[in-house]
C-alpha cells in the first residue's frame, strides 16, 4: 500500500496541528511537513487542502504586509479548527490503538 493513501486520511490533522503552533504561509507549511518526515509532500496537495480548510472555516487566512517582499497570506487556526483538531487527536489515538492491536494479533497468528 502506498504511503500516500495512508497520508490522505491524516494530512488535514497534520496541517491543522502545524498551523496551531504558529501562524504560517503556504511554502513554510510545505517545508515544515517535509521537515517532519513527509518529504514527498508537494504544493499540488497542500494548496488545495489549505483552500478547503479555509472554506470550511477551520483556518483563517490574513494578508500581512511584508517589509522586504510581496504581501503574503498567513494562516491561523479558528476556534472551529481547534475543536476539529482536538477531535482528530482523540480519534487518531483510538485508531492507532485499534490498528496496533489488530496487527499484533496477526503477528501472533
Amino acid at each position, binding site marked *: 500500500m502506498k504511503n500516500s493513501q495512508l497520508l490522505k486520511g491524516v494530512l488535514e490533522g497534520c496541517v491543522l496541528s502545524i498551523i496551531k503552533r504558529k501562524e504560517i504561509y*503556504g511554502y513554510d507549511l510545505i517545508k515544515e511537513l517535509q521537515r517532519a518526515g513527509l518529504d514527498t509532500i508537494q*504544493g*499540488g496537495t497542500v*494548496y488545495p487542502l489549505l483552500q478547503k480548510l479555509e472554506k470550511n472555516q477551520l483556518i483563517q487566512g490574513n494578508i500581512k504586509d511584508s517589509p522586504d517582499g*510581496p504581501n503574503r*497570506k498567513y494562516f491561523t487556526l479558528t476556534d472551529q479548527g481547534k475543536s476539529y483538531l482536538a477531535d482528530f487527536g482523540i480519534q487518531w489515538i483510538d485508531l492507532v490503538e485499534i490498528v496496533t492491536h489488530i496487527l499484533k494479533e496477526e503477528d501472533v497468528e
Partner: protein
Amino acid sequence: MKTARQYREAMNELEVNLEPKNKDYFTDLRVYMELSSIATDERVMTEQLYQMNIDFLDAQEEGISAEVFFGNDPKTMADELLKQLPKMTITNALKKVGLIALVLWGIRLFGDFGQPQQIIINPLIYLFDLLIGFGIVSLFLEYIRRSVYQKKFLFTNKILSNTVAILIFVLFILATLTAEWFIPENWAFVVPYPLDIYLTSSLFLISTIVIFLTKLKPFYSISWALFIFVIIGVYERLTYVGFIPETHDSIFLKIAAVVIGFIGYFWISRKTETAK
C-alpha cells in the same frame, strides 16, 4: 484588498523572474485556471494564484523547479483548487454579461453605422447576437482550456488546433452576418438621420471616456477602431443625405480610413503591450 486586475498585474511582474520552464508551467496553470473559473469569484482565484506564485519564487531561489514544487499533475491540482472556489456573485455575473452585451451590440451598431444606409435596430437580432456570442465564445474558451493540458492530437497539433479556432471564429461571423436572413423584423425600427450620428457619436464618446478613466489599456486600440468607424459612418450619412457630394474619390477615402484604422489599431495595441 487587491482587485482581480491588480493581482493579475502583480503576477505579470512576478513572472518576469521565473525561469523559462517554470514560467511555461505557471503560465499553463494560470491560463487553465482563468478559463475554468468564468463562473467563480475572480478575485479569490487570482489571489490564490498570486500567493502560489510568490511561494514558488522562494522555492525557485532554492533550486526547486515548478514540477517538483507543485507536482507533475498540475491539471488535478488546478481542478481541486477550482472545486473550492466560491461562485461569482449575481452582481458580478450581471456586470460580465453586461460588458459582453455592450461589446457585441457595439460591434453591430457601429458596423451598421458604417454602411451607406440608415441604421435599422432589430432587438431580436441584438438578442441573437448576445446568445450566439455567448455560445461561440464559450465554445472557443472551452477549446482553449482543454488544449492547455490535453495530450490528444486534436489539441496538440498546431495546424489542426489553429484550424479549429479559425472555424469557430468564422462560424461566429457567419451567424451574425446571416442573422438578418432568418430573424423576423416585427420589432425593427429605423434610427433616422441625424439621430443616428448623435447616437453613435455619444456612445463612442462615453465608451472612450470610460475606457480611459478606468485605464482599460487593452481597449485603447478598440477605442481607436471605433473612432474610425464613426468617421466613416458620419461621412456615409452626410453623403447619403446629400450634405457632402459623393465623388469618385470617396471609395479611396474609405479605404484610406480603414487602412489608417488598422495601422493605428495595431500600433496602439503594441504600445499598450510594451508599456506592460
